[in-house]
């Protein structure tokens, strides 16, 4: 599948994402909910994540999902969109949204897994509509942020920071 070059999330759409994640966390009593890009980058999170390193968690969750997809492909399963990881204290459900994002729900043993699956699927449908809008507006929004001066200043920052 062809990958997108850039994805630009506006303030309005981030608010929509936060609303969907917040409601899902509340309705399922999940510890927290996260939306990742499938490259492992964190888009938004809601709930009580405490001091956890979400940057590392995002990289690992996306890696685990991609890896499981490769396993599924070897096994001849071509529409693999969900993983449930069950722990002693906490469980993690990861659902693919429109081939681009991952919705991750972290929940404890007080929450019924069936409820999380159903409500995560419904939230996924809403997030897929957000993703469609974000895709269509990406080019115009990108031009507003990234211009020649931005690239030049970024190059200067790279030169000054990354030295021996």
């Amino acid at each position, binding site marked *: 599948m062809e990958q997108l070059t*850039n994805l630009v999330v506006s303030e309005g759409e981030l608010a929509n994402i936060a609303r969907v994640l917040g409601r899902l966390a509340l309705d399922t009593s999940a510890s927290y909910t996260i939306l990742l890009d499938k490259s492992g980058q964190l888009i938004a999170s809601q709930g009580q994540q405490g001091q956890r390193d979400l940057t590392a968690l995002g990289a690992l969750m996306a890696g685990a999902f991609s890896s499981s997809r*490769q396993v599924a492909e070897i096994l001849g399963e071509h529409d693999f969109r969900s993983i449930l990881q069950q722990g002693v204290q906490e469980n993690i459900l990861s659902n693919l949204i429109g081939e681009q994002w991952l919705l991750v729900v972290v929940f404890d043993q007080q929450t019924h897994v069936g409820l999380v699956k159903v409500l995560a699927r419904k939230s996924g449908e809403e997030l897929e509509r957000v993703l469609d809008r974000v895709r269509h507006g990406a080019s115009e929004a990108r031009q507003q*942020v990234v211009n020649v001066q931005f690239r030049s200043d970024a190059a200067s920052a790279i030169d000054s*920071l990354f030295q021996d």
Partner: protein
Amino acid sequence: MALINVAKREIQCKIVYYGTGFCGKTTNLQYIHSHAPRPARGDLLSIATESERTLFFDFLPLDLGQVHGFRVRFALYTVPGQVLYERTRVAVLNGVDGIVFVADSSPEKLEENFQNLLELEMNMRRMGRDLGSFPFIMQWNKRDLPGAVPIPTLDRYLNRRRAPAFAASALTGEGVFPTLRAICKAVMGSL
């Protein structure tokens, strides 16, 4: 795929260090981790086997700071180099914005470098990407080895696309930051 988060005023990009087993990808990240200024570097995360070979990936987040009011972040990854981990390499390439191909300069590794590069080209094609029009940097690593293949030879056999190339010895750090600067700028240029 670079993620531009206007609301959080953040730009995130993913860079992958690719190459054969023991070519020095993890050593590149370790050097960057130990020498980049502290506010810029995050924790280095490694998923390795007991023999310290990369099993899944290494991950190092770097923070460039504010540019025009946007916080620019790079996520550096390595892939496991051993032949049997091809599917894992495909998984790590997901959503990549820029690639550093780390070539081992040992004469006995030339063929393996070549095969690994072909595999990378094929994996990128499967994702609808052409390395020729993608942020892509070559690194000739292990230049300190006696009997290292001359750079013009490496260039002729491994760099058909004439990508920018840097001589390096990741163990001592030579060439590590020039490579990093080049790929970061190439990624910024392609946003």
